């Protein structure tokens, strides 16, 4: 039995402790916005925030977190797609197939939480998630746009 805090809700799930958090989120909790891409922390499709840190949930055993750890998934980033990153992504029509974009958005949100005005080099270093459709140019522009939206909101 694992006790979790996901998007502000406390819950208990019956699951072996070595189960990756990704699969607990998808199969037990029912939050499928977090995606499986590689299972070995290479692609970032499974990115979530744990206590504000960006983590690749395919490689986080559920037994390594407990109810004191705040897990935020794409579904919990905002209530209404109003997070600056989501707004910027929408404005610039970033997604193509969209499959990797939950992870991309979570990675960008984590970057902006620590760096209000990331440079291109900061974005290069932080945004290491794989996109096969090739939305990288728009992701870069949208991170800059999200930074501007965040300033405007503050």
């Amino acid at each position, binding site marked *: 039995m694992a006790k979790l805090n996901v998007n502000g809700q406390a819950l208990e799930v019956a699951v072996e402790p070595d189960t990756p958090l990704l699969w607990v989120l998808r199969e037990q909790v029912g939050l499928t*916005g977090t995606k499986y891409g590689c299972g070995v922390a290479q692609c970032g499709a499974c990115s979530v925030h744990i206590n504000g840190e960006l983590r690749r949930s395919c490689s986080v055993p559920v037994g390594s977190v407990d109810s004191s750890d705040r897990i935020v998934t794409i579904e919990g980033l905002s209530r209404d797609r109003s997070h600056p990153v989501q707004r910027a992504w929408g404005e610039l029509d970033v997604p193509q197939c969209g499959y990797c974009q939950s992870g991309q958005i979570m990675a960008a949100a984590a970057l902006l939480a620590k760096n209000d005005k990331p440079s291109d080099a900061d974005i290069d270093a932080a945004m290491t998630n794989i996109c096969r459709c090739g939305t990288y140019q728009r992701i870069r522009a949208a991170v800059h746009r999200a930074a501007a939206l965040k300033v405007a909101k503050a």
Partner: protein
Amino acid sequence: MNQSMPSIAAATELSRRDFIVSTGAAAGALALGWSVPLDAVAQGAGSELNVWVVVRPDERCVIRIARSEMGQGTLTGLAQLVAEELECDWSKVSTEQISPQANLAAKRAWGEMGTGGSRGIRTSQDYVRRGGAAARLMLLQAAANEWKVPVSELRVADGVITHAASGRSITYGQVAAAAAQLAPPDPKAIALKDPQTWKIAGKPLKRLDTGDKLDGSKLYAIDVRLPGMLNAAVRSCPVFGGKLVSFDFAAISGRPGVKGAVRVNDSTVAVVADTWWHAKSALEALPIQWDEGASASVSSATIAQHLNDGLSASGAFAQRNEGDAPKAIAGAAKKVEATYATPFLAHATMEPMNCTARVSADSAEIWVPTQNAEASHAALSEECGLPLAQCNVHRLDLGGGFGRRGGNQDYVRQAAAIARQFPGVPIKMLWSREEDQAHDFYRPISVCKLSAGLDASGALVGLHVRLSGQSINAYIAPQTVMDGKDRRQTQGWWAEPGDAQLGYAVPNLLIEYAMRNTHVPVGPWRGVNTNQNGVYMECFIDEVARAAGADPLAFRRTLMQQHPKHLAVLNAAADRAGWGTPLPPGVHRGIAQFMGYGSYSAAVAEVSVSSSGALRVHRMVLALDCGHAVNPDQIAAQVEGSVAYGLSAALHGEITIDKGRVSELNFHNYPVLKLAEFPKVETVIVPTHDFWGGVGEPTICVVTPSVLNAIHAATGRPVRTLPLKHVKLA
């Protein structure tokens, strides 16, 4: 909805009746219940004006889409074309997808559903526009009838019909019910708009399908959850062509959640469990005995030998033979010769292969990401031994396609074969990334030797191309291969205009293809044969230009005077890139042009190579003439995407074979391009408005050669093998 569509209603009722539906996870909340897609056609009432257009009383115009959406924007583009002719309010447009069973029941009223070969828009644009126009004419006639005025006195804009003489106006939603009762006009007799007058099509409108990609609520097939559903993980014999001998279920039967292990086909075993994680973990612990067969000794080295033999073998290999190229080259003042090689590549769609199936004695249904829903339907029917009418396909937007999920419906067959053994139980089959890498239909491997002769003035007098490699058609459509010849493999070197025509006129030209097949399954991969052929032709032309002492752009221009569209696109790329103008120190340019999928492409790349040999691609300018440009912003997105997919292959992409199987099983040793490596991309669309070309694939064929030619300019040495990670640049 109109009663003429019983098939769609019947098809959707099943899923509506049987499942409680949640529309995915609400923001911040936990998703309860089940996640299945609503088959859109059943949603809400409305007046069906024809198979493409339904107008609702609340003014919403529903446009039906038969092609698959996998990120390429076809859904939005097709809706723009229909809406343009319909003259509706774009802000009130929504779309719904047609199922293959509905299409079948309606005698293929929606035409072809296959989405590959960059055909989604170009081969359906005519009939979908006529559908929109026919609906407009019916709506106008209904208003004319209502007001008892000649239809010629009416005007329409944004879904509002006006009669200037009497000052009256009425909306589409108000006349739709009456319009639906009218006899439809003959679609062939309708005059379509001049594209130069377009107001919705041709504009860089936002995509219609972005919203639910921003908050995780979009449902992909991998996300489907049904009541009582079990999950399956599969493994096929790692050696292609090998067989499953046996497996020891007793060794895993006590593991958590495991429900069974089954033979899927003669080379595949599946473990079925309550969750996929349980199924996958148990599969990894399952003792399996394979008969790896005769191909277990094949390696990349033996394949290379096999292909190299094709470069020198004699035989009737000519696909195109004009003049006498060998003689012209033998007698030329200067000869140039080079041999190039490109590897197998995997598609690596971000969403791995998956399909959810429920099969009983008299019915079968699947939830599937597919580029060809009709092929999925047929595969399901065949695999289950049930008539098409008893099979239903629920298609979901794809988490990437790139050619992997088209004609080859191997994953549908597997899911159906597993589900048959659990009658009535929905089974979600998902491949691990490792399985996805190990059992793709790979971009074929090939090598190419090119020879050219220059006369004393530096003019090209002869060109001889000998291509040797694996044939896609020989693997997926052997009936199309006659006498060992497969014209498709020489895509881009064809003489005929309109599709993949060579843009150069050479007095003596010989294009040969020696088919050298392997045991490795191959299939279409974004851009298909234009990828490698573009590299071979365009890198070699650069080498020939250097040998002639000519500027690569100027040299190409002299060969392209009979091909004005190719030339105009080349010039557009060169102009935007500032060909010939100074660059920052250490930065060098390369250029390429090629044609595929009915569109003309050219690129200029700017790169630098450090003293340690580190490559940086700084900027790429790509020009495209796709005839009509339906959505310039989405065309730019596709061009950007082609750069990412093409550069991934050029820099990193390689599938190698060892002991008959694939070595690169995940992204740690099959790396793909990341954001930090992505150059600044500028898209120049130069539509000539006199044909309909493709968009998704054409530009990928110029990405790699323009970069390699820029590297050649930077280092003074040509690059003739890929990927670049194995090439020492310093």
